[in-house]
């Protein structure tokens, strides 16, 4: 048994089937209450997967259960035995990837892209277009690391539907072609949404502007900044991820960075919690940009907003309240019933492989945000932002903050 399999057995073995986790797992209702797409089912099937593997039987039949998990960790918050069905799913995906069984074709495509282009989409100069004219130095001790997350958002929607294919079987055919001929991905710019591109670039400029006004000096890698590998990690490609994380770390070091400023919760969580486990001597100080903005630099406005806290902020990081604190300085904040550690996923992680489940999760979350009573929805993650938008209006926290920054700061 591999060490991942051992850990999977240990995690799933503690479960006593109480079913609490199932009650908060967003993918259960969104899958029509199919328990194999819910937290308790995943834990049970985790044990079943190991049994099947031990008997030398195939394991690919379990793929949908584990790949549809959002990694949102809502389950962990309510499990009295401390079991994390999200981790069970993650480890199950790692087992599948390492055995080469059950991994969806699209997932393999993502791995290939990231290893080859250091991004999901070869963005080239478009990745750094937002920084044009800002004269940010290319090297220095404090490095602003966008991880390309905002930039990738302008491709996400069109690209997802392209790869999923319109007709039956089309998705498989398209992904198959791209897998064989990865350069096809260079056509991706055709799928770019200009409007979103502009908006995301603005968000990044807003962030850079606010940091500058707080007197933070930072550098930026520009076009050569690599994607952090989030999706590859989430999909369970453990050995590629280890290799890739070393590469990214090397790139950070080349710029002389000691402190890394992140702008989105996925990259922040990955660098803070996962990289230190993957890369020996990963000793960078990792801070989120909102931690460098002083609440006193902001003034109250008349906005009333419902705040969607991203899972990777509210649950993966201990007591991470910087965005919420800043938001409270500038607007009247309405929190939905599921907030803080009990926040509800936006559905984003399922958008690529399980769009129907993702849609259901997004609808459920948007309903909660509406019921919370804010006049608009604000979030602090580009992935959440675009997902929530499918069901209504939403804005990035940076757009609101920059408007309410004291002119003298």
């Amino acid at each position: 048994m591999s060490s991942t399999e051992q850990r999977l057995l240990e995690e799933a073995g503690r479960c006593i089937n109480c079913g609490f986790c199932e009650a908060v797992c967003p993918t259960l209702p969104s899958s029509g209450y199919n328990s194999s797409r819910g937290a308790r089912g995943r834990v049970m099937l985790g044990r079943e997967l190991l049994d099947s593997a031990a008997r030398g039987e195939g394991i690919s039949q379990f793929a949908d259960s584990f790949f549809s998990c959002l990694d949102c960790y809502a389950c962990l918050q309510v499990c009295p035995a401390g079991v994390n069905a999200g981790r069970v799913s993650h480890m199950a995906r790692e087992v599948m990837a390492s055995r080469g069984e059950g991994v969806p074709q699209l997932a393999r495509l993502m791995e290939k892209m990231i290893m080859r282009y250091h991004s999901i989409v070869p963005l080239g100069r478009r990745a750094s277009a937002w920084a044009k004219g800002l004269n940010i130095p290319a090297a220095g001790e404090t490095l602003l690391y966008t991880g390309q997350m905002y930039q990738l958002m302008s491709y996400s929607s069109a690209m997802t539907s392209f790869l999923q294919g319109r007709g039956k079987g089309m998705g498989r055919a398209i992904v198959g072609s791209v897998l064989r001929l990865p350069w096809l991905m260079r056509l991706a710019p055709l799928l770019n949404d200009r409007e979103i591109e502009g908006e995301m670039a603005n968000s990044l400029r807003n962030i850079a502007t606010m940091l500058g006004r707080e007197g933070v000096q930072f550098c930026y890698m520009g076009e050569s900044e690599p994607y952090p590998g989030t999706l590859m990690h989430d999909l369970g490609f453990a050995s590629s991820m280890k290799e890739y994380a070393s590469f990214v770390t090397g790139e950070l070091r080349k710029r002389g960075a000691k402190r890394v400023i992140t702008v989105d919760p996925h990259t922040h969580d990955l660098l803070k919690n996962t990289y230190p486990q993957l890369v020996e001597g990963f000793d960078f100080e990792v801070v989120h940009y909102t931690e460098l903005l002083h609440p006193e630099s902001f003034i109250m406005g008349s906005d009333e907003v419902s705040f969607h806290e991203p899972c990777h902020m509210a649950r993966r990081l201990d007591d991470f309240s910087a965005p919420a604190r800043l938001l409270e300085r500038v607007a009247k904040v309405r929190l939905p019933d599921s907030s803080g550690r009990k926040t509800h996923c936006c559905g984003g992680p399922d958008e690529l492989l399980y769009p129907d489940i993702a849609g259901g999760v997004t609808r459920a979350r948007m309903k909660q945000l509406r019921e919370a009573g804010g006049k608009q929805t604000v979030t602090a993650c580009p992935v959440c932002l675009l997902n929530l938008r499918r069901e209504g209006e939403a804005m990035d926290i940076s757009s609101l903050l920059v408007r309410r920054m004291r002119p003298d700061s």
Partner: protein
Amino acid sequence: MGLHEDLTAIVPDGVLSSREELIPYSRDASHFQGKLPVAVVLPRTTEQVSRVLKYCNDHSISVVARGGGTSLTGASIAVDNAVVMSLLRMDSVLSISVEDRCAEVEAGVRIDNLNLKLSKLGQIFPPDPGSSIAATVGGIINTNAGGLHCVRYGTTKDWILGLEAVLMDGSVLRLGNRTLKSRIGYDLTSLIVGSEGTLAVVTRAFLKIVSKPEDVGRVLAFFMDIESLGRAVAAIKASGIEPLTAEYMDRMTMDAVESTGTFKFEVRAPYVLLLDVDGPGEAIGRRLAAASVILGENGATGIVSTRDRDEMERLYTARKGAYSSLLKLRKSERDVVVIGDIVVPPSSLPAVLRRIGELVLADGVRVALFGHIGDGNIHANIFVDFSDSAEMGRVESFHTHLAETALEHGGSVSAEHGIGIEKIGLLRMEYSSRHSEKALDIMKSMKSLFDPKGLLNPGKVFD
């Protein structure tokens, strides 16, 4: 056509039949491993429920209704070839009328979700089993669940005004009413409450609701011996204080709760009593003080009181998760926990608790004790490795002795978790101790009126 196709014709997109999709339905929260269902069907409407039941009746296929699947007695798993019918898609709160004191809900609504909606109107639906986050309206009706607030509000049966229920032949019955009173012949609503899915599938219910307690305060009282704790509870009740909850835990349970990191008890003692008092804000302090004095006079060695909402919430969550937390104390993964769920008149608690202490030693079993002590309900959580036949023998003997103790003191072998698969023998024991075996015969005759072919949840309640 085959079963899958036939069911799909009734519930499009609502039938599961691949092995990996069926596996999660082969277990509930008990230690029993059920049989893999032949199919799982997830209806959205009463009409679909009716058509599926009629189809299964015509084809002599057993059906097991399932809500949250949190049964601790194996009630919601199949013991033989059966279709499992999950009611989770029927999850709408249809109406709430504060004026009528009534909520109309579908069977698959989870209790905490219902209470979240009600709390916005200043109301609650009081039955609150430790599993309320996941348990459903249909499930708690069918187990007649109790919970942490039973000492004040009684069990589920006291809060059900009416039901919509579907019989195995597909007929839909509307029983009781949305009114607080209705005397319309035999009370079939009450008959279905607690019937563990053996008489009908509940699809809707009219629930009685009540205003939320105005304010709540909590006392934690620590005791060196169990008899003092039992006496203290009796003294509190005799004093006229009507606690909202009165729960207790032994040391092993407290250790388990602490090991999950949800709560840290300030005092280290063998037993703790958790007592909630309610009332208008200005009266809470006085009531907490009065309760503390009585507890102190009756042997509490440490008393901590709080009105801090967060702290109370954490403790409440910890208590609700006590059973699951205990599983951390299993010696190996082969260990399971069998739960003795007895109830005795609260006045007998000191004697019964002392006797249980003696039995634990005499039978040589590992047991953690906690329970809703305010209404005399004791949960004895017995660790057992089923592959160790000597240990199994000891556990069986303890479980029987525990039930006998309850009966000797005018109590019952099953308080709230129901009979399911687990307590079929104990149920027989209770009626035979009362020389009322005939009652079981009557129940079986009633079952055959509702379900002549015996297809609804077979192998539960009776053998």
